[in-house]
């Protein structure tokens, strides 16, 4: 376990959240999605190590937004609904 009680992980999560947002909105939704997922995992590890603070919350929120918008952008590219009927599957 790191000696900073997860603060480093929280900072990493926030950085990934910011970079993820930039990728999601301006460069590539899929990369933003992946960065967001990693950011969420790091924020969770930070929480598990006992770190409490706005840095972790910011990292978590920005990573979550990256994931949500990344999903929308990625799904947009892959045309979601049209394949439901083609695959013969139902919710």
């Amino acid at each position: 376990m790191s000696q900073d009680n997860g603060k480093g992980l929280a900072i990493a999560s926030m950085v990934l959240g910011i970079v993820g947002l930039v990728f999601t909105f301006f460069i590539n939704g899929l990369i933003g999605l992946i960065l967001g997922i990693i950011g969420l995992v790091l924020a969770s590890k930070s929480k598990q190590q006992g770190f409490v603070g706005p840095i972790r919350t910011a990292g978590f929120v920005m990573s979550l937004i990256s994931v949500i918008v990344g999903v929308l952008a990625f799904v947009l590219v892959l045309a979601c609904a049209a394949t439901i009927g083609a695959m013969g599957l139902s919710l």
Partner: protein
Amino acid sequence: MLPYVTLFGHTLSTYSVLAILGFLAGLLLVVLASPRFGLNRDDSVYLYVFSFAGVLVGAKLLSLLPLLPQMAADLPMLWTGEWERFVRTYLTSGMVYYGGLAGAVVGAWLTARYFSLRLSDFFLVLVPAIPLFHAFGRVGCFCAGCCYGVEAPEPWGISFTHAVAGPNGIPLLPVQLWESGAELVIFAILLWYAGRTKVRERLLPAYVLLYAPTRFVLEFFRGDPARRLYGPLSTSQWLSLAAVAAALWLLYRRKNHEYSK
């Protein structure tokens, strides 16, 4: 009905937009209701978000189960330059609700273990979020035209004009909207029940006992040929029966546990 919407100059699948709105509605519920039940908001949000990851994985895995032989045969597409078609065929849409529910429970259980939390304490906010999300999802189905009902004369039946995952021009029962309405009623009942019950463990079986019979009945009105039938019942009807049995077993086990104290 309305398969695509344009937001900020981008054309998006309405189904995906509504699914995300459903997720956000559930998140809002978790954030607002947690303090009311004396729960740590931070813990609730982490549990909700990671159980949602379980929803996606579980719903996808169960939908792929009957396609495994075909998927195995198509695996070479991944290294013959057709990976995008492989992803488009197998990994985008096509989700099975009961797989998502099982995935949510597993995801929430793993997250609770990871953070050393007692999962059943959080049922008060997590369980009502399930029908809330699903209500949005069913409206998404209606917009895409999938999961439709049997043919019926108007005004009971509605003819789709822009369905991308169902037939156009044939009046069909809007079962998706019926289920969406039923989900909202179940959501209201669970929210009311969450404020009154002293046994938090009962929330999940209560949800299953409300949803599974509803789904069982609604399946008789479904007309999409994509549903697989095993004997007289559809896959979801068999799964509904199994879910009811599991919920009753959970309640029975809980009751025995109370007596043994």
